[in-house]
């Protein structure tokens, strides 16, 4: 793994159009700016892992659709509900 040392306000490039900027650091937190084309997804690792875990568990569902409807069926007001 390439390891770089940067100071606050300094940056580096990955390829021609991705710039990573160190904005701020305080204690064990570092604030990073990412300047990248919008087609490049940027995701926090723990979120990606949580989404993957959720899907694996959901794919192991043993209930059938009717059981889900039964669990859902008693819900009051559906369509009008605001999230």
């Amino acid at each position, binding site marked *: 793994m390439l390891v770089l040392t940067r100071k606050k306000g300094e940056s580096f490039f990955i390829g021609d159009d991705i710039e990573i900027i160190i904005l701020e650091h305080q204690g064990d937190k570092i604030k990073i700016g990412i300047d990248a084309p919008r087609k490049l997804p940027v995701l926090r690792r723990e979120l990606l892992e949580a989404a993957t875990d959720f899907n694996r568990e959901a794919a192991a569902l043993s209930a059938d*659709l009717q059981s889900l409807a039964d669990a859902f069926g008693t819900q009051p007001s559906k369509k009008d509900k605001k999230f």
Partner: protein
Amino acid sequence: MQIDAKESGRIEVPETSLFTFPQGVYGFQTHRQFAVLKDRKNAGNPFMWLQSAMDKNVCFAVLDAAVLFQDYCPPVPGAVADLLHLSQGDTPQYLVIANLPQADSRLFLNLKCPVVLNPATRLGAQVILEDEHYPMRYYLPAKGGV
């Protein structure tokens, strides 16, 4: 097209129910084609299967978010909008994945990682919403209660 479905076995699926997922879904990136299947035994059931065409065991129970909320329409990240050929003004369909684990009898829905479908191009993708407002486990109110 014929596919093997987890609940119904081998079934014929119309082209209009088939969606291409260029990146699969999280944890199942090699699954590029999914069918959206309604409950064959109960037409009024809002739950559907998002069934991989490749493996009958890769199957998710999903709900069209519009069934539950009138205002669930999180912004689709630019990368995903491009992937699905969504233009500004196009209305995507949001499916949320449900789970009802055996050990826990309360149903929950993943509002943080919806499956976004573009019915016009029949392309789909799962997104992760960075916005903390959307929970990964949204529990429906307890049975009978409000």
